[in-house]
């Protein structure tokens, strides 16, 4: 499938801090997960790809346009949906008014068509019944869905979601997963998250970032496979393990280079992620 987004050598510094370091990637339709610890550069990468901030170096194309030109940036923005980490709202607006405001900013000028589109996306995120309620009176999960509706309005071809499930309870997270899975049908979605379960359940591809650079780029199964033979169970914490913790059954789960005769167990995506961050098996496979 041809890539929707193709980036090469993206770098960005904030003062002396290197936020992005020579990042290259290709995104195709479907949901791609972006994992990494705090400060890894995930949000910066998302902001660059969302055209909110230009890179210092490197270039990318999105939806067939070059955002490095004023006209290209406009074209990308016309088909882009962006949900930032801290969306921020005008609390006196109703959900409908706020999404309608964003729709106008997305140049949906015809009032009738726009209102139909706003009602459609609010229904899509399950807020049809509360669209007349002021944002200040909505719960955190509902506000997050308002922000998702604002990102979805105008049927964007490229959707950038920055930690959309942070602060949501398990039920809300499940609901959000359904929404993101639906949004990923026919669209290119880049989803930044700390939740490896979100990636395992939603994404056809995962990118792991650390210190502004891509440390892994492949499928979730490939990331999990990196930990094959490197996760073992023991009755005591293994001092040689890169990471180890007591599980609910009382035994220890260790990740790293196992000793001879270790009781190997099936790895999870999280194990692969931990090893990718530790510098083990971090070759980029894309």
């Amino acid at each position, binding site marked *: 499938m041809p890539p929707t987004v193709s980036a090469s050598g993206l770098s960005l510094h904030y003062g002396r801090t290197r936020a992005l370091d020579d990042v290259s990637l290709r995104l195709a339709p479907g949901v791609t997960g972006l994992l990494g610890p705090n400060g890894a550069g995930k949000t910066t990468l998302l902001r660059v790809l*969302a*055209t*909110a901030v*230009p*890179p*210092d*170096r*490197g*270039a990318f194309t999105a939806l067939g346009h070059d*955002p*490095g*030109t*004023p006209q290209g*940036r*406009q074209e990308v*923005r*016309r088909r*882009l949906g*962006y*949900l*930032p*980490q*801290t*969306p*921020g*709202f*005008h*609390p*006196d*607006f109703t959900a409908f*008014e*706020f999404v*309608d*405001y*964003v729709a*106008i*900013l*997305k*140049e949906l*000028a*015809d*009032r009738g068509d726009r209102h139909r589109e706003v009602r459609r996306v609010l229904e899509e995120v399950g807020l049809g019944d509360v669209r007349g309620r002021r944002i200040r009176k909505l719960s955190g999960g509902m506000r997050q869905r308002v*922000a998702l509706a*604002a*990102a979805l309005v105008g049927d964007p071809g490229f959707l950038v979601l920055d930690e959309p499930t942070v602060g949501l309870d398990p039920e809300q997270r499940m609901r959000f997963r359904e929404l993101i899975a639906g949004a990923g049908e026919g669209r290119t979605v880049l989803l930044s998250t700390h939740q490896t379960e979100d990636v395992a359940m939603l994404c056809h591809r995962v990118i792991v970032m650390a210190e502004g650079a891509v440390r892994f780029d492949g499928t979730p199964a490939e990331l999990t496979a990196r930990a094959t033979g490197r996760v073992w169970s023991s009755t005591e914490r293994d001092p040689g393990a890169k990471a180890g913790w007591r599980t609910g059954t009382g035994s220890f789960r260790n990740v790293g280079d196992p000793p001879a005769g270790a009781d190997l167990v099936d790895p999870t995506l999280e194990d692969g992620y931990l090893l990718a961050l530790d510098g083990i098996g971090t070759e980029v496979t894309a």
Partner: protein
Amino acid sequence: MREVTRALVGPVWRTMPWRALAAAGVLGLLTAAVPAVAGAEPDPWQTLLLLRGVALIGALGLGFLLDDPARHLTAPVPARRLLRQALRVGLVAPLAALWWTAALLLAPSASRPPAGDITLEAVVVGVLALAGAALAVRLTDEARPGPFVAAFLLLTAVLAPLLAPEDWALFVQPDDPRWSTAHDRWAVLAVVVAAAGVLCGPEPVGRGRRRAAKARRAGGPP
């Protein structure tokens, strides 16, 4: 573009920081009304100082004009930032003009400085606030840069009279022979500050391009 602009007027009006603007407006009018309420007959320099203070209070309110809690969510949209900022300024300008007229009328007429000249000073301070806000929006990710802009304005108000060179005096009194020349300078300042504010409006397309061009000129790698 015209349709989008027309559709934006209502929502943008509602997104403006009315509390900060109203607080500055009320405080400014109360300050202007102090001599009338107290029944005092201030000297011309006192009325001048009073009106300069009122202008500063109004400008402090304008420093919050570009605050936008939804800034991050609405950053990558096709409607240009400059258009949205211009709309805010356009919507607040008639109210600011009415407010300033009321402040002038509240000041004692016997000691009031020339209205055109003191209005020019007020315009410069107001435009400085807006330019500061536009600069803060351009250079930072702050959704609500108003408090920083207000602090910058207060600092400028304190330092400018102290640091301005003697032959570039701005804060003179009406009976000073330099009054007219000083207001020529205020006019120049108005144009310069307004131009700086407008230049801050558009979003940069790429920092990399400028740096790369600079590096190429210097013969280094882009």
